[in-house]
Each structure stands twice: as C-alpha cells, then as structure tokens.
C-alpha cells in the first residue's frame, strides 16, 4: 500500500521518501506534509521515489501544484531514484522542466546541500 516512509529535515533540505502507488492519496499526503514545512519556512524539497514504482496523472498533477506553491516562495523541488515509468510520466507532464532529478539520494544531497 502507498505511504510516506520518512520525512527528514536537515541542513535546510526536506527529504520526503515514499512507498507504493503515487496516486491522489499519496500525492495529497506529500502535498500536505510539504505545505506544513513551507508554512514553517522550508522551501527546498527532495522527493525520494525509490520505493514507488508507479504514478498516475492525478498524482503527477498534485506534484505540479506543489511545484507551483514552491515557486511562490522561491522554493524548489527535486527528485531522486525515479523508476523509468515515473520518469517518463514526469517528462510528459512537464515536471522535469522545473525540477532537477538525481540518480541517487546521496548524489542529490551532495548537489543540493
């Protein structure tokens, strides 16, 4: 089943790790948590989708909403460890134009710190 596995906030970067189908429910969970952090001043987010191997367009559109929210506070969202099918969907839906993607979390942390 889909869920958020972990949220880690250190060195100004909030890393959200998920598991399972990135659909409306999981998308909204991510969005709610991110908004909480945005309200508390965070604006740099990394989404680790290594344990999520599937996304639908609703899940992706919720992530677009999150990107728009982050743009309002001059924030940014990055992705790491995307499954090929998720990367394709994100490409088609235009998410990757606004977000960086990294092969691994370690690589992302190094680049975003």
């Amino acid at each position, binding site marked *: *089943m*889909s869920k958020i596995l972990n949220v880690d906030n250190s060195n100004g970067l909030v890393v959200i790790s998920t598991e399972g*189908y990135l*659909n*409306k*429910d999981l998308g909204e969970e991510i969005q709610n948590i991110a908004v909480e952090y945005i309200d508390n001043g965070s604006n740099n987010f990394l989404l680790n989708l290594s344990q999520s*191997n*599937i*996304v*639908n*367009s*609703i899940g992706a*559109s*919720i992530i677009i909403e999150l990107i728009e929210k982050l743009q309002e506070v001059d924030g940014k969202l990055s992705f790491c460890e995307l499954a090929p*099918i998720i990367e*394709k*969907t994100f490409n*088609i*839906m*235009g998410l990757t134009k606004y977000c960086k993607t990294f092969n691994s979390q370690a690589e992302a942390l190094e680049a975003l710190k």
Partner: protein
Amino acid sequence: MFDLSELNFILNKKKSFKGKISLLNDFLFNNNIEFQVYFFSKNFIKKFEVNNLFYSEKINFQKVFNKFPHKIINQKVIDYLNVFEKSNFQKGGVISALFYKKKPVGFFYLFSNNAKENLFSYSQHISFYFDSFFKEFNLKLKLKNRTTSFQKIMLEIESIFNITELLNSNVDNLSELHQNILLYIISTLNASKGILLIKDINSGTYEIKASIGIKENSLNKKMIRDSKGILNDLKTDNKSKIINNIKDYALSDFSELNCLASPIISQKKIHGSIIIYDKESRDGLVLFNDSDLRLFDNISKKISLSFDNILLLDSLKESKKSIDNIMSSISTGIIKINILGEIEYINSSAKKVFSFNSESVIGNHYYMVFEKNNNLIRLIENTEQKKEVLFESNFDIVDFNDSKHQINLTISPVFDDDNEGSGVVLSFEDLSGINKVKSTFKKYVSENIVDELLKNETLLELGGSEKEVCVLFADIRGFTSLSEKMEASKVVYILNNYFQAMIDVIFKHNGTLDKIIGDELMVLYGVPLKSDNDSQNAVNSAFEMLKELSVFNKKMSNKGFPELGIGIGINYGKVVSGNIGSDQQMNYTVIGDNVNLASRLCSVARAGEIIISDSVYENLKNEEAFKSCKPIILKGKSKPIKNWSFNNNKT
C-alpha cells in the same frame, strides 16, 4: 489624474490574474481611489485564486447599466443594488460591469473624493484591463486544458508503447510481467486499484497473479471461479465492460464506485481477466466512462494477442528448465557454439572436464575459451567449414587449470530450419574416469578384455550364474621348505617377481587372475568374456609360463636366488560364478567341482608338468604334446578322472 502608462508598467510586473489585481488594488489605494471588485459566483472567485474579491448576489444589469457598462452612482442605481453594496457605495462613485466570455459576471466600484471628475475615465481603463485579464486568463486556461489533454493522450500512447514493449521483451519472470502489465494499466487509466487473474486450465479456477492498491487480507483465499460475478459476465459477453452495480458482484469487496473488467482471450478461450477499480480525479473518485473503456479495451486486446506468446514463453521456460536438468545430469560434456563462434551453452559435465565456470565462457569466442587447445580449435574450424560430423577418440585436452585429460570427442554441425549452418555442438566423454577403472581392472584381467567390457557393458554379467570356463592353477613346488631357508624379504621379493612374470603371460592369453593363494595362482579363461578358444588360451598360457619361468630362473639365479619349479593343472567345465562372500567382503569368483578338479590336477603335477583334464584335451589344437596319464580318483566321484600330461623336463 494618474499616469496610465505607469499603471501599465506596474501591472506587467505580475503575470497572474491574482498578482495583477493585487497590484491594481495597491496602485489605486496609493492614488486615494477606493476600489472594490464583486463577482456573482464563488467558484469564479476561487478559480482566480484572488483573496480580495467579493461575492455579490446577482444584480439587475439591465436596470443598473441600461446598455452602457459604466454608471455614476446616483439614487436610482443604489435602489437597484443589493443591501450589502448599498451600504458600501457612495453617490458620485462609478460602478462598471465585468463581462467574461460576453456574459456579465460581476462589477467593480471606484470612488475618490479628490478625482471625482476622472473616475469615469479610470473605470473605462480599468474595464479595459479586466477585459485583457480575462482574455489572457481564458487563453491560459484553454492552453492548460489542451496541454493536459495532450499530456493525457501522450500518456495513453506511451502506455500502449510500454505495454507493447513489455509484451515483446524477454521476460524471465512471469509474475513480474503480470505485475508490470497491471502497473501500466492502472496508472494510465488513473485507477486506484486492480487485479490480474489467470485461469488454471485444469481446474478452471482463477488465481490472482498481480494486485495493486488492495490490502493483502482483502484478497481472501476463496476459490475464484467464473460461475458468478464479474468473471461470469465476462465469460458471457466475451468483451470489456464497465460494471457499475459493483456491490452486487463477487471480487467487489475492495471497490467504492465502479470498475472496468476485461477478459484475456486467446484462441477464443478466456485465459484470465484484468479488473481495475475506482477512477481517481483531483476532486476524488469518479466513475469510469466510455472513453476509459475504449482505452482499457484496446490495451486488453493487445494483451490478449500476446497471451499466446506468454503461454509459449512459460512452456519454453519449463522445457528449458527440463533440458537444463537433463543436460546437467548426464556425464557427456556438451558445448554449443553459435554461428559467431561464441559459446552459447555449456553443461555441468563439460564445465567439470574443462574446469570452467559458465560466467567465464558464455558469450566468449571459442578461440579464447580453448586457447590452450589448438588441436581442438582446428577440429572445430574443420567442422564449421566442412559441415560434417567429426569423431576423435582418446583426444588430448588441457583444462583451465592446465591438467591434462583424454576425451572421446564428437563435433557436430548444427543447422537451422533453412538448413543453413548455425554453429557446432561438441559432445565428449571424459576418459579420466574410464582410465581409472581400466587401471584397476588391469590388475585382474588383460587390457583387451577391459576394452571389450568398456565398449559393451552388457557383456559383463554380474550375479550368480552357471557358465563354462577353463580354470588354471599354478603352484610352486617345494616353496614352503624353500621359504623357510630364506629371509622373509627375499621370499617376498622372489614371489613378487615371479607373480609379475606369470601374470604378464596370463594376461597375454586373455586370462583373468581370480586370486593368489599363498604361492598358488588361480586363473580363469572365459570370464568375464567367453571365447571359443578358452581351453587353448589356458594351455598356451601354461606352456609360456613354463618357458618364462626358465628365463626367470636364469635371471634370479644370477642374483643368488634358488630356481623355482611349478606344477600346473587345467580343467574346463561348468562352474558357478558370482559375487561370493559376506556383506563385509565380497569377491567375484567361481566355485564348483570343476574348480576343485583343476586344483587337484595342479596338486598332482610335478615341477615343470602341466596336467589337463579330458575336457581341455578335447578342445586343443596341439593335443599331441600331451600324453595320457593314470586316471585320478577324487573324493565323492565314483569314476576315476581321465587326464593328460605334458612334462617340460622330458621334452
């Protein structure tokens, strides 16, 4: 009057409608102009995401504006307004209508104590801005909708590509294939969950091969059949369908709205089903519609078309597994080389002989793999060129660890369906094991017999059986008293040399050494392989043993050893052969009266004398060398035994 070009410049700083309204508000406020915007629809306000817009009940546009969209507020206008706006608006202010797609959607209000005379002009300009905002917003909305719908089509096309790719790929793991098929369908159609079922051909029951979004415990272990529910519907209609009255059906426990179900049909038979449940939208779950059904049906048909291949793949994998099991259990080494000269397959026996592991050889060219075996490379090249089967016996090879082996090798060309060469197959037997057996056997029988036996194992009959053999006993005369006078080490030395000399002769004549009893040799002719001249072989052995003994005596006397004299007895007849002994020790030997007779003939033979029975004499070609002797009386035999003698000392 404020500078309109400055306002233009300011409003261009923000792209969104929300941002522009906010900037306009600030600008007018700074110029001491009161500004309020009202819309008749709360959804409209939400759509623009602007906080400082107000909601108003609809007003009578016709009476308020009377064809012209801007009005200076007087008592007549105030009378037509709603209670809320009446309290907020002042006479002398201006009210302007707002139109979106030519329909009245709201109005705005301007008031200023300092610039009453300019308000009318301001309102015309601001109306123009709103008009531009709305047009821009509408264009953006249209673009966004078109982009979304384009993206949706792109995702659908991508999904069909992905599924085609998936179905045509080499799949090692069938359950992974099922899971991936379901993943693509669910994500493409925005379903919240789904299952893929495959029908068991024998039992007719369905097994859930993949599931997404469904809690493990919801998939109860009930037997799933197509006698009722969704599966029965699919069986009846044989086509994809939307099922709305979902709660009435089996397999519906995990659904909230409706589902799409499709049969997997191959060769006009249903082999399984895909069911996806509850379509997601941004605003919650929605019903699957006909457009979803069309796409779902399209994808399902593609899967059905490929199902034969999936079944074939499954059966091929089973066959491959079975062939691999067979190949790994046989002792023959098998190596398949493809048309490019690369090692394509190697079984475990071949790996063992060459001390290879698969990883190091599979996919490599045989030039590299057999770099230490140039002769083998030449033979493979030869077979590749001539396309003929090639056989080499006792072929020397060197394994990966530089150990030498001998193999019996066959190299066969392989042909494809068009009779074109598609590589070669090497099959070989490692002779190392056989050679080991041979060397052990050689201690007891001649090499000819070993070779014969190894060629045709059926000749070797083990177990108790009655057969005709020729039995030879050879005993050293006076050896007991001789050995008493000699040192033990010398006794062992002379005996070992004597036996070696005699056994060489015995093997030369295809004799089988049955046993050595003290200084006595017991030799059989006709076991384990029978021949037409077993008696002649035994007698020839005996003659040569006497001859060899005189050579041996000369050699040993030079070393100070005494001369040996042997007596030989030979009999031919039926004996019982078999493994005789106990569980702890068991030997293959022969027993019976004819064995005893041979022993008895030996015991009466003097040094240099060969005594044969009548049955041996009858089978000889050189019987004239023997002279008739006095018959021997044996215990338990009523008649004396006729026998013949050859005395080396008298010739």
